[in-house]
C-alpha cells in the first residue's frame, strides 16, 4: 500500500482585511462620539419632542441632584483665548472677588496652584468657605467629596433669595459667569441657549423650582431644559 501523504497546510490567515475593518470602525467611533463628562451625580433626563441640540460651546450647565444640590459646569468657546480651562480660572477669580466683598470678615484666598486645579475640574460645586480645602485634596478624594451620596455638603449653596444686594452663592456664580470676558457666552446666556438646567426625571418640582426661581431673580428668564430625544411613537 502506498503511503498517503498528508499535505501540510499553512495556518496563516491574512489579517489585512480584518485590520482594514477595525481601523474603519475606530475612525467612525473617534469622529462621531464625544467623551463622557464626569459628573457628581448621574441623572436620567426626561424625554421630549424638542429637536434643538445642546450647543458644544459657550454653555453653562446647571446640574440639579434629586436632593437639590447644585453643580455647575462651563464649556468655553472654540477660540483658545476663551477655552474652558482659561474661563474657569477667570471665573474663580471673579467669584472670589465678589464673595470677599460680601464676606469681609472671613475672606477666602486661593493660590495659583489651587486655581490651576480648579480649572481642570469639569463639574464643580462646593461651598466657597471650604473650596480651598477641597482643592488641596488629591483627585480621588475630590471625587468622593463632591459626590452628594457620600457628602451631603457638596453642591453650591442655594436658597430662595430675592434680594440681589445679598446674593446667595449660586447667584454669585451665575453673575460671575455672565460678566466673564467672553462676549459669545454672555450673548448665549442672554438669549437662553447658554444656560441648560439638567435634572433627573424623578426630581420633585419644588427642587427644580428653587433653581428656576433663582434664575428668574437674576433676570435670566430665558434658559433651556436638558432632555433626551423621545423615541418614535411616544
Amino acid at each position, binding site marked *: 500500500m502506498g503511503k498517503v501523504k498528508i499535505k501540510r497546510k499553512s495556518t496563516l490567515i491574512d489579517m489585512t482585511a480584518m485590520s482594514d475593518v477595525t481601523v474603519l470602525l475606530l475612525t467612525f467611533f473617534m469622529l462621531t*462620539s464625544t467623551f463622557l463628562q464626569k459628573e457628581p451625580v448621574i441623572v436620567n433626563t426626561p424625554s421630549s419632542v424638542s429637536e434643538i*441640540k445642546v450647543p458644544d460651546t459657550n454653555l453653562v450647565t446647571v446640574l440639579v441632584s*434629586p436632593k437639590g444640590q447644585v453643580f455647575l459646569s462651563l464649556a468655553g468657546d472654540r477660540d483658545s483665548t476663551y477655552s474652558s480651562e482659561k474661563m474657569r480660572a477667570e471665573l474663580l477669580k471673579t467669584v472670589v472677588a465678589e464673595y470677599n466683598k460680601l464676606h469681609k470678615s472671613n475672606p477666602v484666598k486661593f493660590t495659583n496652584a489651587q486655581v490651576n486645579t480648579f480649572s481642570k475640574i469639569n463639574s464643580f460645586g462646593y461651598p466657597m468657605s471650604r473650596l480651598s480645602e477641597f482643592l488641596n485634596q488629591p483627585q480621588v478624594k475630590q471625587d468622593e467629596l463632591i459626590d452628594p451620596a457620600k457628602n451631603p455638603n457638596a453642591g453650591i449653596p442655594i436658597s430662595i433669595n430675592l434680594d440681589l444686594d445679598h446674593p446667595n452663592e449660586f447667584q454669585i456664580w451665575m453673575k460671575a459667569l455672565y460678566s466673564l470676558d467672553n462676549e459669545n457666552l454672555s450673548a448665549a446666556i442672554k438669549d*437662553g441657549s447658554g444656560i441648560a438646567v439638567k435634572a433627573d426625571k424623578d426630581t420633585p418640582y419644588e427642587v427644580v423650582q428653587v433653581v428656576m426661581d433663582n434664575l428668574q431673580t437674576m433676570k435670566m428668564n*430665558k434658559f433651556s*431644559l436638558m432632555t433626551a430625544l423621545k423615541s418614535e411613537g411616544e
Partner: protein
Amino acid sequence: MAQIEQSSGGKGKKSRQKKMTIHVDFTPMVDMNMLLITFFMLCTTMIKSQTLQISLPSNEKVDKTEQNKVKQSEAITIILDSERHADVKDELTGKMLKGQVKKNLVYYYEGQPNIVDENKDGLIDANNMNETEFLPNSGGVPQGIREIIHDRNKQVIEKINVLKEQWRDKKLSDEEYQKRAKEIRNDSTLTRPIVIIKATPNASYENLIGALDEMQINSISRYQIDRMNATDSALMMDIKAKNLRK
C-alpha cells in the same frame, strides 16, 4: 511578524531574479485596534442631549392695571402631580423604591375654578376639575390631556397641518415654513387657548417636561408656568376625596 516567501521560479528557466511576496502579519495590529475600539465604545457617548427652551416672565412687579387678565373662555389650567412610592421593595430587583415616581397625574379645569359647597357636605358641588393622563397618540388620534388641548387649539393646528403638508412636498423652504407657522400660532383672529401650567411640590420634573412638550406638540403659543394657589389645592383634595369614596 513579516516574512518573505520565495516562490520557486519557473522550473525550466534559470532566471536569476526570484519572485518575492511579502507577508505581513496583521494580527497584533488587529488586537490593538480592537482594544482601542473597546476603549472608545466604553468611554464615549453618541447620544447628544436635546434642549427645550423656556422663558419665564420677569420677576418685576407689574402694575395691577397693566396686568392683562386672561379671558375666562380661553383659559385652561393644567395641574401636575405625581404619586410616589412609600417604603416598599421592588419585587423584581429588591431595590428600595422610596420616593420614586409611581404614577404621574394630570388634572385640568377650564375657565374659573368652581369651589362652591352649598349643601355643606364637605365636597364641592360642581367640581369642574378633571383627572386625565399623558397618553401617546393612538392610531394618529390624540388622547388624554393631548386630546383636550388639541380640541381647544383646533383652528391653529388645522392651519399648521396644511402648511406642514406644503413643506413636506418641498413647496416651502424651512425658513418660510417656520415664519408662516409662527404667524399662524400668534394669529389673534383664531380661537387659541391660554394654558396655565401649575405643579405641586411633589410633581416630578418629567411631568413638567411632559406638559411643556404637549404645548409644542399642539402648537400652543400662549402658555405660562404659574404657582399653585389654595383654590387649586382645594379642587385637587376634593377630587381625591371623591375618588376614595367611589
